[in-house]
């Protein structure tokens, strides 16, 4: 790393720099401190200039990891994450990570090198049309072939990535543009102000109508999504819920937007949501959707979805309103701003009768599955999630992969704070957790970070263990190991006559694998060992991996089969049997 005073100067006074230096100077001036990347021929000039700038670069083991790290960094911090890769395969390896960020509206900027502008389009070595490839999975992208265009493109990329509905932006810079020089003038490179989407508007009449609907509702439910966190509207949602006494159901990506321990919290909705949450939605006479998009995993069959309910949709993206569910009032704008305008029109409301009814629906299923697991002497993933939650006080940043463990985490780890659950919801990208957790740790070095991954997904990006070792960062890893691609196996069990084709999986000894990276680890196969293992992991100075060998053919309940109505769920077999084991005796 170079001289700080020097760097400050380059970001303020217009100076002649190489394109490569302009890349870093612009990033520094945008407030970037960490980037995740992998070098190669077409991005080498940029790497060569890195030493002059106060930015920490993390060398990943696969560019997909770089994109997920930038993504995890953005989700944990609310800032823009940055990934760097070379042309060709380096760039294409980013694509899964970019698509993951696109589907979950995460602000990241990916910078790729490309071949010289003179040979663009000639199938030169490691040349690929990455702006063409990423066109449908980025919010926008840039192909930059002139040095003087680098700073404006990167500044625009940051603005686009974080404005309105956030998303990934890619800036592809030809090698000759990196090598030539231009005057770097950060101020002059400022992009034009964001043009507001003309269909993004909140009318007074809409606000009045919404307030009227809330006033007259007998059975209202707030549906809180990722937009609550993106917009920073947690307080406003809470005020609305408390003032009008409306219970709050959360989407997977909304978990943490409303405190799990709050009396009005219902929990997660949708395919693996608790039965009373989905029943409350189906019974509701008013849904107040806040920053969510009625994903198919949330609605089940659209034709039977909440047919008794009027719908208010508060959403920043005009293309999302009336896309899946026809709404009665669409308030299209930033959630926090819209709620700020709506709240003065909301007065106290007696919601007791409805809340009582939900409490009845909840009944003893509230103390449910976890206590009713058969005492086979086997370890259940639910136990692990419950104990992790209990022992971390619900305060860790938990980064989950995709599959059964992801749903169990959502059910049993209760999130009180936003940005404490990081997971790939929209794209459902296996292999996301480990690299995303590395990004999250860089964003929040003081926070406890846990990876929870299945044995399948973990192996997709396990190479990033080496990144953890090289960076000497403290991350705790829980591998929920059931020897199957568990969620797919569950679908095969329910819908494909238990034909377990291609789902049994032989894995390496994960503890030995960690050991090979100089990372400590333990295998746990009974409930009794969980607590001490988690304790050991938490107190270990470095990264730690626990290989939880759990019940092999466990399933996630309840489950709404894809395309079924929200109230038609598969319940845990014998779910109401009295428990043998109490929650609190660990």
């Amino acid at each position, binding site marked *: 790393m170079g001289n700080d005073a020097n760097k400050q100067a380059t970001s303020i006074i217009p100076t002649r720099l190489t394109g490569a230096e302009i890349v870093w100077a612009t990033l520094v001036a945008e407030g970037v401190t960490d980037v995740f990347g992998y070098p190669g021929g077409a991005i080498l000039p940029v790497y060569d200039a890195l030493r002059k700038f106060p930015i920490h670069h993390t060398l990943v083991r696969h560019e997909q990891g770089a994109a997920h790290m930038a993504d995890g960094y953005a989700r944990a911090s609310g800032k823009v994450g940055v990934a760097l890769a070379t042309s060709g395969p380096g760039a294409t390896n980013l694509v899964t990570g970019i698509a993951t960020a696109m589907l979950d509206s995460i602000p990241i900027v990916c910078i790729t090198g490309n071949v010289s502008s003179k040979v663009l389009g000639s199938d030169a070595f490691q040349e690929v049309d990455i*702006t*063409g490839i990423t*066109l*449908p999975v980025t*919010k*926008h992208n840039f*192909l930059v072939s002139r040095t003087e265009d680098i700073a404006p493109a990167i500044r625009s990329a940051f603005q*686009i990535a974080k404005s309105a509905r956030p998303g990934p932006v890619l800036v592809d810079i030809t090698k000759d543009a990196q090598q030539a020089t231009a005057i770097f003038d950060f101020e002059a490179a400022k992009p*034009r*102000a*964001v*043009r*507001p*989407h*003309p*269909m993004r508007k909140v009318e007074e009449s809409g606000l009045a109508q919404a307030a009227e609907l809330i006033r007259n509702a007998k059975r209202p439910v707030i549906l809180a999504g990722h937009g609550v966190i993106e917009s920073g509207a947690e307080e406003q949602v809470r005020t609305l819920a408390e003032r009008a006494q409306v219970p709050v159901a959360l989407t997977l990506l909304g978990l943490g937007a409303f405190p799990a321990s709050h009396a009005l919290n219902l929990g997660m909705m949708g395919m693996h949501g608790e039965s009373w949450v989905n029943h409350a939605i189906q019974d509701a006479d008013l849904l107040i959707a806040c920053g969510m998009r009625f994903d198919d995993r949330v609605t089940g069959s659209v034709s039977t979805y909440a047919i008794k309910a009027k719908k208010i949709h508060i959403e920043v*993206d*005009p*293309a999302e309103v*009336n*896309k899946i569910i026809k709404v009665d009032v669409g308030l299209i704008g930033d959630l926090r701003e819209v709620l700020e305008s709506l709240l003065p029109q909301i007065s106290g409301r007696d919601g007791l009768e409805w809340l009582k009814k939900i409490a009845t629906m909840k009944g003893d299923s509230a103390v449910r599955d976890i206590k009713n697991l058969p005492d086979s002497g086997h370890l259940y993933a639910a136990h692990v999630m419950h104990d992790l939650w209990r022992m971390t006080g619900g305060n860790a940043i938990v980064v989950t992969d995709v599959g059964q463990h992801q749903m169990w985490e959502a059910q049993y780890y209760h999130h009180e704070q936003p940005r404490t659950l990081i997971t790939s919801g929209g794209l459902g990208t296996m292999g996301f957790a480990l690299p995303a957790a590395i990004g999250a740790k860089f964003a929040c070095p003081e926070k406890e970070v846990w990876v929870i991954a299945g044995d399948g997904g973990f192996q997709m990006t396990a190479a990033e263990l080496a990144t953890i070792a090289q960076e000497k960062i403290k991350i705790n890893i829980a591998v929920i190991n059931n020897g199957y691609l568990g969620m797919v196996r569950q679908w095969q069990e329910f819908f494909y006559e238990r034909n377990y084709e291609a789902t049994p999986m032989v894995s390496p000894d994960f503890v030995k694998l960690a050991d090979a990276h100089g990372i400590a680890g333990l295998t746990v196969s009974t409930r009794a060992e969980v607590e001490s293992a988690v304790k050991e992991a938490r107190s270990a100075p470095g990264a730690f991996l626990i290989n939880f060998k759990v019940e092999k053919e466990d399933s996630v309940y309840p489950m709404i089969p894809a395309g079924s109505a929200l109230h038609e769920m598969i319940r845990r077999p014998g779910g109401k049997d009295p428990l043998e084991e109490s929650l609190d005796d660990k």
Partner: protein
Amino acid sequence: MLHTFVAYVEDRPGVLTRVASLFRRLNINIHSLTVGRSERAGLSRMTVVCEASAEAGHRIQASLYKLENVVDVDDIAQAPSVTRELALIKVAATPRTRSQVFELVEVFRARVVDLAPESLTIEMTGVESKIEGLIQVLNEGEERVLEICRSGKLTMRRGHHTSGVLKAMSAGEDESAVESVEEGVAELE
């Protein structure tokens, strides 16, 4: 239902792909597409005609606006508008058979713009149905239609100028940016 999207887009490489890609993703076939310079320097005007449900149409419009290079979008299929299409039609015709074609051209108020020993070229401007009519009659006749080149639908709302381009270009939050855009536009005018 038929939609006619009129979009003002930045005149830059790749913008056409971004717009077309939106329709491709929804598996919607574009009936016609015209692109050309508009009244504003640096902005092209696109007219895209396609068949889609009302909901899909709304989504396309909302999604078009989300593209960074798109400045203004209007869906004017249902609005009172002036609509024209230009067609060039090359017909095989010898000196002996030409007169029949000339008659048709006269009836349809088209023009013959090129004449060769074995063929002639007709220029026809009008609404789509009129062009279809001429083509149909030509196809039913003895002379073979050799080539057809159609511009696709060109259309404009009737009456007062309603393009939201100026407003859209200056609707940023940054005052100075607004001013500079307005100045730029004033210079152009």
